[in-house]
């Protein structure tokens, strides 16, 4: 059995976030997975006990908008994705600029 995802284009992520926020969802987690020539990002949201998962495919050289303007707590997940995988996320409200994780080598999961 696999988790069901709603596939979202990277360029439409903020609209989707606004809708989820309006529908009363909270952020559960965000994470990245390395794939050939890019990343798969999974954003999970919850309402009561229900969970909804979004999947965004991102090319290696592309960037994605931060969702911290809509879900402020996303700053920890987005800084994590940047520091471990090198995902380029624009306009994180609290941006650690690569210093959330003090790893021996930069972007070790890339």
């Amino acid at each position, binding site marked *: 059995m*696999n988790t069901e995802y709603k596939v979202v284009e990277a360029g439409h992520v903020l609209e989707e976030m606004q809708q989820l926020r309006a529908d009363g969802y*909270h952020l559960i987690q965000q994470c990245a997975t390395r794939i050939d020539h890019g990343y798969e990002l999974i954003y999970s949201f919850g309402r009561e*006990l229900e969970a909804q998962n979004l999947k965004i495919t991102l090319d290696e050289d592309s960037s994605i908008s931060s969702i911290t303007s809509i879900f402020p707590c996303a700053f920890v997940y987005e800084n994590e994705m940047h520091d471990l995988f090198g995902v380029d996320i624009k306009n994180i409200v609290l941006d650690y600029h690569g210093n959330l994780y*003090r790893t021996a080598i930069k972007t070790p999961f890339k």
Partner: protein
Amino acid sequence: MSKRSVIPFGPQHPVLPEPIHLDLVMEDEKVVEAIPSIGFIHRGLEKLVDKKDFNEMVYVAERICGICSLGHGLGYSEAVEHVMDIEVPSRAKYIRTILSEMSRIHSHILWLGLLADGFGFESLYMESWRLREQVLDMFEEATGGRVIFSIMKIGGIRKDISNEMLADFQKRFDKMEEELKDIAKTFLDDVAVQSRLRDVGFLTKQQAEDLGCCGPFLRASGVKRDIRSTGYEAYGELDFEPCYSEIGDSYARTEVRIKEIFQAFDLIRQAIAKIPAGEIDVPVKGFPNGEYLTRIEQPRGEAVYFVKANGSKFIDRMRVRTPTFANLAGLTETLKGCDLADVPMLVLTIDPCISCTER
């Protein structure tokens, strides 16, 4: 106008056994903003999927943390079992549930001890940890380990717990429950304790929801959300309601955790009464292929486990989102407006587990 200054708090601090750093922006003695920093000891355990096969990763998951080890083994196993469409035998589900509640009891009592130590009540701290030791003894008898249990496996559990041993545990838990009432009374009624916990570190229901908080930290702000209510493992066959408080201060967080310890005794009682006979595991054939994201309720809150597998014995990605990681944003909000002297206590009230966070 008050003068602003920045005080560094941590990563080494007497009340913090693990490294987390906060930059506290102060106006005189009041905190106006707190900026957290973690990552001092990040171990990159998730990356070990490249070197350990999907069965061996159960042991890696358990080693994420010494307090939450059982839950990490369980959460990872559940995610892989979903990918592989494995139905775990009922007896194994009950034993997993009993062990999860034992884990909750020892984790919450450990936290109570640390809290007492934090506000300088040494005898209460010692008494709490004396009680916790009894749970570790039972873990050792049941699994052979006191910290890392190695009882979880994909498809069930490695070792059965006999009905005689469960009956013996039940008697010991009954006795422990009586002993805990004395400690709970001190935590909840003592004037000196209340003076450190009441009316500090407020987090409203709306803030807790908006900031993605979880666990007792969330429920103490009036949100009745407990992932055990989804009915994973044997929880769907047990009768319980999430413990919560409407107040949202440090006292409420203490009260919720104490209620959850008593609730765990009740859940263990129910599970022991209902546990069926039968197999404890099923054979696992082939390799996982697919992806699944599952959630369980660890003692510190909702933990998320994501597995992506490609049909080989090495999975592509294992991701663990720990409760403390989710509660960092809520912590910074509770610190706003508090006195500098209350910062260590407020950090403690989220029950931070940096070992989990630095997986």
